């Protein structure tokens, strides 16, 4: 946790707005996203499929599909250049070439969801790891190999010397994800974006990969962004949580605020939908309905149609982000001074209190 005075912002996304041209029309996928990442911190973006989590980070990597248009916003990245002076650049304004040459891999690296398809099948894993070093660090072959072997060991691949010459198909899914992480780390990035890094892996491997990323984060002083729909992952790794719905961040807070004092009905829904063993109810809750089709811009609050606590105003106007604590914000009309006092569902409240007590035992 970062309790240091005035943590330094490394990535600052402001008013990001992205739409996609499709055959059916324009899909307004990202509708004004703000997100902060401070040095050394871990920030999670949670939300359902299609909520725009990945698109937001792909925009920062310059990996948006060709049918995407950035309508507005900036992604400010702050770094110290070779001369030692602080620089802040808007990644969206950089030409692709500059982005690839100076930022991708070297400053911001990314780990993708499916390790089975994210490695080049015709290249040895050693070469794939060394590529980044040749590109950014201009290392000679020997130094690169030595560093690659180090990385393989760091990500927990036994027998690195032998694995170095292996092709991806000779490794299991968990091993491949470790290799993908090693590839991402190859040019010593400052920021690591993990796009659902454990979704495609089985549960026993998931925990190991998460622990690995946390260990590496500490050792290499990385700032990490997790994109996930798994609140279990969030609770385990994140300092701050951004809850995303229909292309907007609907609630932001530190991990305790989101898990113990959630304010947005959507967050309540997400938390209620987590499987829980200590409950009398044997049915698993799910949020009714499905996310809105962003082909048609939702009027008012995008979540209103699925929200059992929706107010009349939700149908008419979009709620602003209300600030509750210095770190906790939520975009729901329930927080308006004139709104009726509505609390989270009592079952959820009881459950969160139980979880908090459970957690306090370990403090």
């Amino acid at each position, binding site marked *: 946790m970062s309790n240091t005075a005035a943590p330094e912002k490394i990535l600052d996304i402001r008013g990001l707005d992205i739409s996609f041209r499709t055959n059916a029309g324009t899909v307004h996928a990202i509708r004004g996203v703000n997100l902060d990442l401070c040095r050394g911190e871990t920030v999670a973006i949670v939300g359902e499929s299609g909520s725009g989590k990945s698109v937001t980070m792909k925009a920062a990597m310059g990996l948006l599909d*060709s049918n995407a248009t950035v309508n507005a916003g900036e992604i400010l990245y702050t770094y110290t250049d070779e001369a030692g002076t602080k620089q802040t650049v808007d990644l969206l304004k950089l030409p692709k070439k500059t982005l*690839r040459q100076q930022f991708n*891999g070297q400053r911001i*690296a990314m780990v*993708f969801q499916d390790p089975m*398809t994210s490695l080049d*099948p015709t*290249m040895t894993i050693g070469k794939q790891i060394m590529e980044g070093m040749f590109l950014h660090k201009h290392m000679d072959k020997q130094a690169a190999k030595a560093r690659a072997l180090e990385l393989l060991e760091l990500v927990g691949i036994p027998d690195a010397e032998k694995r170095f010459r292996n092709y991806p198909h*000779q490794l299991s899914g968990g091993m491949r994800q470790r290799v993908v992480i090693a590839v991402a780390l190859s*040019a010593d990035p400052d920021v690591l974006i993990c796009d659902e890094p454990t979704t495609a892996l089985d549960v026993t491997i998931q925990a190991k990969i998460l622990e690995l990323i946390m260990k590496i984060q500490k050792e290499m002083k990385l700032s990490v962004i997790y994109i996930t729909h798994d609140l279990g992952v969030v609770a385990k790794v994140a300092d701050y949580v951004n809850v995303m719905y229909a292309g907007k961040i609907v609630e932001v807070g530190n991990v305790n605020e989101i898990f113990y004092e959630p304010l947005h009905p959507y967050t309540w829904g997400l938390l209620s939908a987590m499987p829980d063993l200590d409950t009398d109810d044997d049915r698993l809750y799910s949020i009714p309905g499905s996310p809105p089709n962003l082909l048609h811009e939702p009027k008012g609050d995008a979540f209103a149609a699925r929200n059992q606590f929706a107010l009349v105003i939700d149908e008419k106007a979009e709620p602003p982000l209300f600030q509750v604590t210095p770190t906790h914000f939520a975009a729901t009309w329930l927080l308006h001074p004139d709104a009726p006092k509505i609390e989270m569902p009592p079952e959820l409240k009881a459950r969160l209190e139980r979880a908090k007590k459970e957690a306090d035992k370990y403090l």
Partner: protein
Amino acid sequence: MLKYVLKRIGMAVLTLLIITFLLFLLVRIMPGNPFPSERMSAEQIANKRAEMGLDDAIPVQFFRYLGGILRGDFGKGTSLYYGAPISTVLSTAISNSFRIGGLAILLGSAVGLLLGIVAALNRGKFWDGFCTVFSILGVCVPSYVFLIFLQYTFAFRIPYFPYFFDPNRFLFSAVIPSVSLSLFTMSTIARFTRNEMVEVFDSDYVRLAEAKGMYGSSLVRKHVLRNALIPIVTVLAPLVVDLLTGALVVEKIYGINGIGKLMVDAITGEGIDYNYVLALGILYSALYIGIMLIVDLLYGVLDPRIRVAAREEG
């Protein structure tokens, strides 16, 4: 790896042997007569059959034939090119067909690859559309139509190239048939290359390479081309065989003494020429098997998944 190669070669030889036997059997049970029967009396035919050993038991005939092949002797024509050994006639035909086909392959695959790559790199732009239209035309219009068009335009209206094939001016007279033959290959390769490359461009591993900081030509060279080329090899192989074995109609129209024309003559002549049909059948199969063998081995070079499997196999 050596064991893998030897195993593949062994399989290829065995396959060819089985095909030879089946072909032999099929030719023998085919209805019709191997001799130009209208010009021969019953007695002559009976003499001829006896002379060529056609009255012996089929296995006896087969092994005699096989023995001949091993000595490079494919016998003589029964109704075609009477008296000349098949191997002599065939070698001229092969040399004509292979040279024209080879030119067509070179032209077709080189231009096809280039066009496909250019289209994939300019997805959705002019060259992509051009490639699509070109491919559809090239695949839909038969090569002899192109041939007649080229013949009419560049040999008749603008009399630059010869109107018919002239073995004495080989390269010059090979231009029209090679170009018209290459268009199908060119279109197929162009479309396939384009689609494969676009698919590879959309793959996760290209995303990872970009996230690593790769871009432009080194990205294409190191990650896209190799992965896109592997399936292209598979498509190219049968096209190569098709072109090498001569285009039946093109050779006939342009007056090329190639194996395509020979095959047509052997079947549509006065009698069905047993020995030519057999020899050409075996040649076609041998080419197919040979090229597929080369493709398999080439796969081993291009695709580590196969190479490694082969190494582990033995």
